[in-house]
């Protein structure tokens, strides 16, 4: 699991690649905590390279979503691959997270 963080003036882009499971969630948890404790107000989570997510990862995505809302910020997920999207659909996360897919980007 790799986490890459790029801080731009208006937003922070976090790229996740590999597998977000019970073990690697520990690393992502640290990053989530840093993001929530900073003054970042717009976070884009690039999921292009993410191939696996377990409930430990979902727990952190929900924590991040709730935390960003609490400070009046936004969290946008991008480029979610279909196996991950299936897990989001099964768990209802597809309706509580803001997910912007390639086809949406093309419309802009």
């Amino acid at each position, binding site marked *: 699991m790799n986490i890459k963080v790029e801080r731009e003036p208006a937003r922070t882009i976090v790229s996740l690649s590999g597998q977000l*499971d*019970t*073990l690697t969630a520990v690393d992502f948890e640290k990053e989530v905590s840093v993001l929530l404790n900073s003054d970042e107000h717009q976070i884009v989570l690039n999921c292009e390279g993410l*191939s*696996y997510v*377990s*409930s*430990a990862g*979902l*727990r952190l995505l*929900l*924590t991040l*979503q*709730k935390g960003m*809302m609490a400070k009046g910020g936004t969290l946008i997920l991008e480029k979610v691959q*279909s*196996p991950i999207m*299936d*897990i989001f659909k*099964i*768990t*209802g996360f597809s*309706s*509580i*997270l803001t997910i912007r897919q390639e086809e949406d980007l093309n419309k802009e």
Partner: protein
Amino acid sequence: MITNTLHIKNELGQLSLVASFIEHEIETVGISNECSMQIRLALEEVVTNVILYAYPSQSGQDLSVNVAYKDGKLQITVIDTGIPFNPMEIEDPDLTLSVDKRPIGGLGIFIAKKLMNEVHYCRTDGKNILTMVKNVD
């Protein structure tokens, strides 16, 4: 019929053994990518649950994962000797709640139930026996 068993201890670090074990079994049977991720995920959720909750404050306890394949069905059995726990009795999460009302957590077992075609539980001889079946054809 292929059958193989992995014995591990109730430590989260052992999840990597579970992952490589199931990957090897999936490869041996020749299961498609999407299906294999679902099987791995269901197993991770169930085993994580056993590791975290079956043996409160006891380390070095045993659990086993058995995988059997026959006629297009992959059957996974997870056995522990911890406190009785029937995952089938856990209520499914309310997926209609808004983001601020959704509780953090409580999704693992639900995911496993959704991804596998069958999940059964029984308590026999002081053991929790959870059997999951995935149709892989």
